[in-house]
């Protein structure tokens, strides 16, 4: 499925949009890690929690649960939250 990558993570992907697979958001992140080593830990901590300033959207809807099922036609967006200077 299509995954939109925010600029802070493009040092890993070298692209703003990549393809990855997974039946859940967790599996998708596992596939992204296989393709782009190091990426997952920058957005998910060691306790399997989303980093405080990283957000995930599936088909435009914000998702907070890594077990969220995904379908091949879904579009996933990784977004960095706003921040100050």
């Amino acid at each position, binding site marked *: 499925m299509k995954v939109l990558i925010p600029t802070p993570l493009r040092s890993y992907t070298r692209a703003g949009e990549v393809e990855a697979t997974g039946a859940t958001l967790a599996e998708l992140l596992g596939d992204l890690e296989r393709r782009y080593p190091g990426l997952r830990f920058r957005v998910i901590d060691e306790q399997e929690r989303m980093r405080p*300033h990283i957000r995930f959207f599936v088909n435009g809807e914000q998702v907070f649960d890594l077990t969220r099922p995904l379908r091949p036609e879904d579009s996933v967006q990784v977004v960095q939250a706003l921040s100050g200077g």
Partner: protein
Amino acid sequence: MSRTGPRAERRSRSRTGRGSPARAQKTPTPARRPRPAGRVLVLVATRKGAWLYRGDAARRTWRADGPHFLGHVVNHLVLDPRDGRTLLAAAKTGHLGPTVFRSTDLGRTWKEAARPPAFPKAPEGEKGRAVDHTFWLTPGHAAEPGAWYAGTSPHGLFRSADGGVTWDPVSGLNDDPQYRSWMGGAQDGTPDGPKLHSIIVDPRDPAHLYLGMSSGGVHESLDGGRTWAPLVRGMEVVEALDPSNITFHDPHCVRLCPSDPDRLYQQNHCGIYRLDRPSSEWVRIGKSMPGRIGDIGFPMVVHPRDADTAWVFPMDGTSVWPRTSPGGKPASYVTRDGGRSWRRLDSGLPERQAWWTVKRQAMAADARDPVGLYLGTTGGELWASRDEGGRWGCVARHLPEIYAVEAAEAR
């Protein structure tokens, strides 16, 4: 279990009648002479990236190399003295989680650690800890190539055996129940989170370690980190708090003297101290600082060859803790007699209306003769002195807030 408390400390000391068991096997380390060749490399870590400043042979002019990791919060950038080529950078961004970058060619190319410092996954139903940032990096002992230590926020000690590629938690500290209680919670740390810092490896013994926790005290291990004991006797805490509670102790920076590894200096939230092992009682040597300046600050710098000489950079620790240079007049202070007296060193520094200060990792000495001193300010300026603080000159302005400065010998 940790070896904790005065009773355990006495037990340990009684085995040799002098100090630690490890110390009994140590031999004195001769003072190292300045290296005549090579160049001093000043490593500057900032809130928005890192820079390398390469000096000429006389340390008069400096060439900036950077930014590296522009936009990353870089808490520490350290050169491995064992090869003079490998750099490690502790980094994160405002959005992304923490990591460690590694260069084996003095910063020309970088690779990310394959497994950065991270706590183990907590059992189901328990709230586990997550590293917010790696704060401190220390190369391991000369006899252990590839060994590195990292201190994190929240408090955590990590070790790498492969030059910083993969990192493992030091469970003897991180998971010890007594230490977990002394580490306290987020409110027991600095406004930017608790910091595990000042990881020191005894140059005579790779198993003899020290570290500091802000807050949470100074601690010592004699067995490579498997067990730890507090080393806080003589240290003061904030008025009305109980000094017997290890959590209340806030060492800001601890340094071991390379020329006499039995001597340590400490800049604390509550004064400047010296410790001469095998004693385990810190002596507050900051009382001899001028009263109008006080003895509060962040950095502590030791001389590479003279254990009686050390430098501090005081800050205003009155009222609401402005943490600026006292009176807006920045100055370093040096002792040449182990803390019995202090001399102000402000020649070349701004004479007034300079409200910056120097963080705990942001002041360093090189190993030349005379010693070069380097400091980075919260206002993004890098200052240097080629004569042990006698005269200061500004090397760089307009950098981001400087978090750490290290002086090293590049090969």
